[in-house]
Each structure stands twice: as structure tokens, then as C-alpha cells.
């Protein structure tokens, strides 16, 4: 465990990916396969099931430190992280247990969940008495869940590849699905024999570059050299159909299993030796697209139930064909790939598999007009793809463009502030904004990002000097600062006090030129909702 705590410290101390990879490789070479398996498991974002309610952990930590509960909470507000607060508040121990990570999990942590609370407390106090601040922090992180240390899956894969000499693609593939943290799994993960996985292998995704909202579209040249499609907000996905198997890969090297059973079933109709690229979208029975929050209900579940399958049906909208008859055709020009795609889909004839609709237009002017109606179609804008372009790797300039419509904005007044977490634990960075409803300010959105560091510092100072009331970590401040809030979508919501919910609200700029009285009103928000025509469900 000391080694693992040390690894955590090293990963946490640097932002340089090379140093992180080096620290990981070092760790893997030092520990046995069982420990390496657990480390991989946690770094990949998995967690132990909740063993003890955090409410009890806070209480016991305060007791162990000899401080009242309110003082523990004060400390927590300053630190911004529960595991860290516990590890700091409880007096450090003189002795250090040097048991391995695996021992810790199997004998110290996992059995905790089964014990009655008194015994749990006893065990926790023992754990605290044999850990120093650093190790205790990592142990508490494992217990309280949120184990994040700036290691992406990609970085972990790189480190494992470097450690084992196995190619990163193979590691990525082997990490998919149910991966058990034990010696055998880890040995299989780094096994130098790379055969037997090619069937599932996806192609690197081709990515689009954004066209700045204010840039003249004419700089792209002749509009007839492009195909335009709606830019939906769905799940980008490659369907791999080889050797009578189906694999669905999302961007970010995630193999998706059991999330989209209707698409997996439909894909079995596709002939072997085919790879498609497209977008999974929630679609109602009339064929129109549903908002992303509906689609989101299907993600992150182990199994999708009947009810959900019925409520949020999904369709794979294919826009590209990368492999046909087991032949990699990515170098063919886009228009030829598209023709082959359409021929293939005519034969398939399945309601869960469609090709994307091509937005017909003659000139940029025509397209610009179509784009301005994106919202009516629940799209974010248009995609423009050059007809003669190959399917390139990554974000190659000039092949694919995303042409989003500008975000909506609302001027709102800052009324509450709260300290951030992690890197911003001591600054007021999380704000709540309000609009006018008659002569009352009603909160309508929380926004975290969008200000420069300098501005954050100014707001922070303002909050400290203009606090009127505190509710736990939240400060209510004099309504004085006006900011422009941009967002991607807006709809009615029963869950929100003001009756309105926005998507991705963020601060677009600080309106120093405006007074609180100049801020928008709730009826302005309702007018915007009308213009969106989104369903008013809020489930």
C-alpha cells in the first residue's frame, strides 16, 4: 500500500504525461501481478462498492481528532475533499503498515461492509492508527469512491503497453468488458501473445474541426465540394461486423456492450467484413430525434430494461463506410464510400439502422439558412464533409468541418457562490445565476467555467466582501454582478424551482457594462423555450 500511495503522490504531483507514464511503468515493474491488477482497476476508474456511509466516517474522524462536527465540516469546506480532510484531521500515526495493496483490499477493506457499525468503527480507527497522512489519504480515497488522479484511460494503456511491450491497441481491447482485478487478469492483460483479437479492432476515428461561429463560410471554397448533414448530439460509434461477431466502439476506445441491444441485434444482418461509422441517436416512433438527456438515460447501466428500451428507442445513423468485403476502403474519396454505404443500406432495410440525411442545398447562402433552423431539428448545426476526402486519422484540417449555430445567451445576476473542489478548493468558483421574475430574482442556472483566472480572482474577492448570508458552503451575495450566460439548449423542467432547465450553461463574459436591473427575465427564458419546440417532459 505504501508503494501505491507513493504512486498516487507521483501521479498527483505532475501534469506532464511522460512523467505520469514513467511513474506507472515504474510501479508495474515493482509490484506483483495481483497488486498491478488492483492498481489498474482503480486507475481505470473502477471503485470498491461503498463500504461505510461517509456520514459515519466524518463522525468518527471528528471524534478521533477530538473536534466537534461543525469544525470537521469547516475543515472540509476549506479542503474540498472528504478523504483528504479525514486524512489531515486525524492525528498522524507513528507506525506504518507495509502490507501489499491486495492484502489491504482483501483483509482490511472488503470485509468492512459486512460488519456491524461498532466493529466498523474499531477497524477504521485501527486503519488510521497504522497509516501516515499520505497512505491514509489513498486508503480513504479507495473507500469514499472518487479516485481521480489525472490518469486517462489512454495514459494507463500507454503505460501498460510500455511496461509489457504489448501494442496499445491490444491492451485497449483486452481492458474492455468485465475485467476482474486479479493476478490472472493482469497476466492476461500484459500477455505478449497478441493473436486472436483482430476481429474486434476499430479504426482510429476521423474528427471534424470547428468553424468559428463568426467566420465567413466562403473561405471553405465551392459549396458543391461538400456534403452537409445535421450535426446531432448523440453517441459516435463504429460498428464492426467481422467473423460473425458484432462490436460497437465509441470514441475514446470504449467497447460498448449491452447498452444498445437493438443495434447489436440489427447489426447481425450486416455482411461480415464491414465497418461503419455513425451516430447513435434516441429517436421516437415517428422517426424524429429526441434530446440528448433522453439518450443519456441509456448510458452507464449494466443492463437496459424493457421499459427503458421502449421509452428511449435508439437508431444508428450511419454516415461512413470504412471497410467493405474485409477491405479497408478509407482511402477512397468520401463520395464513393457514401455511394457504397447507401447501396449496402438499401439491402439491409432495418428500422434501427439508417443512413444520415443529406441536407440538400445549392449555395452557402442556402446552407446558412438551413443551419439557422438547426434548433427546430434538435441539431447543433451542420457537418460539412469534403466529397473528395479520405477517412483520415484524427483531426485533419479541411476534410470534415462542424458548423455549429451560436449558443443562446441570457444576462443574469450572480446570487450564490460556492468554493470549487480539487484545484479550486479555496476559491469561489461555482456560481448560481438568477433572472428577474417580477421584482424577485429566481435562480435558473449554475455555471462553473468561462472566466479567466484573473476574473475568478476578482469574483472571489467580491464574494468574500459581499456575503450576506451563508448556508453551509453556499454564500448568498449582494446581487450586483451581471454575467452573460451561454447555453446549448433550454426546456421546461418541474425539477427546477424556476421551471426552466438549461444545457451546458457557462459564463460567456462578464457584463461590466450592465446593472442587475438590465438582466433578463423569466418570461424571456420562456420565450426562448417556445422557439426551441422541445418536448416538455422532465424525466
Amino acid at each position, binding site marked *: 500500500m505504501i508503494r501505491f500511495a507513493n504512486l498516487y503522490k507521483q501521479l*498527483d504531483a505532475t501534469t506532464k504525461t511522460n512523467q505520469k507514464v514513467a511513474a506507472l511503468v515504474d510501479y508495474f515493474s515493482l509490484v506483483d501481478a495481483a497488486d498491478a491488477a488492483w492498481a489498474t482497476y482503480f486507475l481505470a476508474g473502477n471503485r470498491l462498492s461503498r463500504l461505510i456511509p461517509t456520514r459515519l466516517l466524518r463522525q468518527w474522524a471528528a471524534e478521533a481528532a477530538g473536534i466537534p462536527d461543525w469544525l470537521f465540516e*469547516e475543515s472540509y469546506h476549506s*479542503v474540498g475533499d472528504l478523504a483528504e480532510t479525514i486524512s*489531515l484531521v486525524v492525528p498522524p500515526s507513528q507506525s506504518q503498515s507495509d502490507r501489499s495493496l491486495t492484502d489491504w483490499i482483501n483483509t482490511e477493506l472488503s470485509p468492512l461492509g459486512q460488519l456491524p457499525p461498532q466493529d466498523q468503527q474499531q477497524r477504521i480507527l485501527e486503519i488510521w492508527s497504522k497509516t501516515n497522512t499520505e497512505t491514509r489519504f489513498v486508503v480513504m480515497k479507495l473507500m469514499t469512491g472518487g479516485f481521480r488522479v489525472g490518469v486517462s484511460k489512454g495514459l494507463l494503456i500507454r503505460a501498460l503497453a510500455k511496461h509489457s511491450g504489448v501494442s496499445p491497441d491490444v491492451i485497449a481491447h483486452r481492458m474492455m468488458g468485465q475485467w476482474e482485478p486479479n493476478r490472472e487478469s493482469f497476466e492476461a492483460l500484459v500477455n505478449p501473445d497478441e493473436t486472436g483479437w483482430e476481429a474486434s479492432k476499430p479504426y482510429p476515428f476521423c474528427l471534424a474541426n470547428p468553424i468559428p461561429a463568426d467566420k465567413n463560410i466562403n473561405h471553405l471554397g465551392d459549396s458543391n465540394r461538400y456534403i452537409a448533414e445535421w450535426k446531432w448530439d448523440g453517441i459516435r460509434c463504429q460498428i464492426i461486423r467481422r467473423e460473425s461477431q458484432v462490436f460497437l466502439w465509441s470514441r475514446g476506445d470504449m467497447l460498448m456492450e449491452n447498452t444498445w441491444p437493438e443495434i447489436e441485434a440489427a447489426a447481425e444482418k450486416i455482411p461480415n467484413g464491414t465497418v461503419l461509422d455513425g451516430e447513435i441517436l434516441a429517436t421516437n416512433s415517428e422517426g424524429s430525434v429526441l434530446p440528448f438527456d433522453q439518450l443519456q438515460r441509456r448510458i452507464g447501466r449494466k443492463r437496459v430494461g424493457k421499459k427503458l428500451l421502449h421509452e428511449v428507442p435508439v437508431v444508428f445513423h450511419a454516415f461512413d463506410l470504412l471497410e467493405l468485403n474485409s477491405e479497408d476502403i478509407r482511402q477512397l474519396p468520401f463520395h464513393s464510400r457514401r455511394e457504397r454505404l447507401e447501396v449496402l443500406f438499401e439491402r439491409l432495410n432495418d428500422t434501427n439502422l439508417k443512413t444520415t440525411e443529406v441536407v440538400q442545398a445549392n449555395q452557402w447562402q442556402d446552407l446558412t439558412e438551413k443551419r439557422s433552423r438547426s434548433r427546430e431539428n434538435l441539431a447543433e448545426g451542420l457537418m460539412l464533409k469534403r466529397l473528395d476526402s479520405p477517412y483520415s486519422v484524427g483531426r485533419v484540417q479541411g476534410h470534415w468541418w462542424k458548423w455549429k449555430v451560436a449558443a443562446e445567451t441570457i444576462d443574469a445576476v450572480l446570487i450564490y457562490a460556492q468554493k470549487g473542489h480539487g484545484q*479550486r478548493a*479555496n476559491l469561489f468558483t461555482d456560481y448560481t445565476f438568477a433572472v428577474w421574475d417580477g421584482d424577485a430574482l429566481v435562480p435558473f442556472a449554475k455555471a462553473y467555467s468561462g472566466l479567466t483566472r484573473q476574473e475568478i480572482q476578482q469574483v*472571489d474577492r467580491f464574494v468574500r466582501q459581499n456575503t450576506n448570508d451563508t448556508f453551509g458552503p453556499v454564500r448568498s451575495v449582494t446581487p450586483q454582478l451581471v454575467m452573460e450566460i451561454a447555453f446549448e439548449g433550454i426546456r421546461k423542467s418541474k425539477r427546477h424551482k424556476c421551471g426552466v432547465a438549461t444545457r451546458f450553461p457557462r459564463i460567456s463574459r462578464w457584463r461590466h457594462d450592465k446593472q442587475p436591473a438590465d438582466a433578463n427575465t423569466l418570461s424571456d427564458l420562456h420565450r426562448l423555450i417556445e422557439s426551441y419546440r422541445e418536448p416538455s417532459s422532465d424525466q
Partner: protein
Amino acid sequence: MQPIIEQTSAGLYCPIGDFYIDPSRPVHRAVITHAHSDHARFGSQNYLSSVEGEHLLRLRVNADAEFMFVKYGEVVNRGGVKISLHPAGHILGSSQIRIEHRGQVTVITGDYKLEPDPTCSPWEPISCHHFITESTFGLPIFRWPSQATVQDSINHWWKTNQEEGRCSVLYGYAIGKSQRLLAGLDPSLGPILTHGAVEKGIQAYRDSGLALAPTRYVDQTLTKDLIPKSLVLAVPSAHGTSWLKRFGKISTAMASGWCMMRGWRRRRSMDQGFLISDHVDWPSLLKAVQLADAEMVWVDHGFSQVVARYLNDNGQPAKSIGRGSREENEDEQNINAILSTEAAS
């Protein structure tokens, strides 16, 4: 008990003796606890401070002021009020101010710490009726490790950097922290270089009679071959500036009590954080309050409300007189330091 000290917009004031302690704006008569810029401000007519801190104070304030420098324990009479200065252990020349009037004793700690520090006289407890303490680190999360261990880890970090061909850059405040760090460095490891502001502070310490390891001010004549073996003492505002370019491959570290918090460390994007503070931590603060054995405790800048509430809960009458938290001020200074893009010199 009627306090002999009161709060005013310019800071703590003794009306009977007509003087201020660490006034925040120019006044007629100022008693200064120590030479940090948030305590020793420019522009007053008359300054009373400790002999130990004379050279440091003169760096800070106007030369045309009237000065009176006294030894620790020496009593000065002001309108029937007896003032004496006693070591606070914070930085060279730092004092607690003891004020006595008709048998009633008030002690103002200024900034202080209880652990030994080779660069200044050690803190001593003074029992009093009215105790006014700082609370910069007044939360139970602040608990300083053994300073010898931290100093060892700094030397170890330096050695590791040398082995990897990196120059070590260690940040600390120009007065106090840097000299304490210097005293803990192992000069046999390699050359110790200094940033201009730090060198000035070191010179003032030397002028005050302190023996410190040899240092070398970073200027144009510095030869390249020295650099990878060196440790550079610099002010935090140099972080991220082009001044650092001359050192090539570097590893950076900050020495501060705030390093206790992971979020704070990460926000500063330094490679290392060393937990060295010149303020009292939570256990020392409680110990100091206990030893003062006062009827009333006032808690000044820092986590003053938290500390006052805790003391009251535990039977020690206390009141917060915090005027904005130190945390914020220092935080602000540090953010400024990092935002600053101009080369420091």
C-alpha cells in the same frame, strides 16, 4: 475587564498610550511586530520595534521616520502604559507586544510559531489577561511535521535533481522563509543561488549578525556549468516567468504551510511542496492560548471565527476580530505571482 486595546479602522490601538500596533495606514506612533509587508507599513512618523529586526524594518519603511529599537524585555513607557517586546519566533526580530496598564496585561502575538528556528530568537509564553493571537492556520487540518524531516527531504530533492541534471528552484518569501530554508540547506551539495529580492533579505540577516551559508546572487556573470548542480532560492512571483529560462531544466518547489492542502499545491503547478511554515499550526495555537491563561482571547486574521467559536465552546472566552482572512490575502498574492508574466529581477 475593560480592554486597553481597541479595534480601529487603522488596526489595533491603545488610546491611553496613543499608539497603534502594526497599523494598516500611516499614523503618528506605530509599534511593529515584524517586518513583513502586511505588518510593517510605510509612512508612519514614529516606529518602535525590536533591535533584532532593525535592518529588516529599515528595508520596509521610510528612512526619514523616527525609530526606536529596543531589546527584548526592555520596558518603554508611553503615557503610563508599559510596552515591552518579546520574541515571537516568526522571523528575525519578530516580537509579541506586551502592554501593561495598572496591572492589566495585554499580549499581541503578531505572527508567531512555537518550533525552534535557527534564524531568530525562540517564542516564549507570556501569561496575560488579554491575549490577541493570529490564526492564519487555525484549522485542525494544519499540523506541521518535524522540521528536521522536511529539511532532509529538501536536501534529498536537491540531490535527486542534481543526479537527473536539473536545477532546483525553491520558492519562499524573501524575508524569513528564505533565510530559514537557507539555514536548513546542506551547502556541501552545491552552489546556492539567489533571486534579487531574496539576496536583499539575506544581506539584511547577515548585517544583523547572523551567520548564513554562502550564497550567490544570480547575475550575468553566472557560468552555465554551475547551474545544474545549483539550488536557487527565489520568490514565488518568479514562478512561470522568463527569469527562470536561464536555468534550463528545472524542478520547482514551494515551501509553505498551505502545501498541506492538495488543491493549493496543484493550483500552483509546482513539482513539489514542502511543508514549512512560520506560523502556529492548530496544536501550537491551542497550546499558546492555554499558556497565556488569559481572561479574554481575541482572534485576529486567518480562521478567526472558527478559532473563536472553538475556544468559546471549550470554556475559553474568545472573540473574532478578523479583518478579512490571511488565507485570502496570501492566496491572492500567490495567484498574482503566478499570473504575473513580467520577468522578475
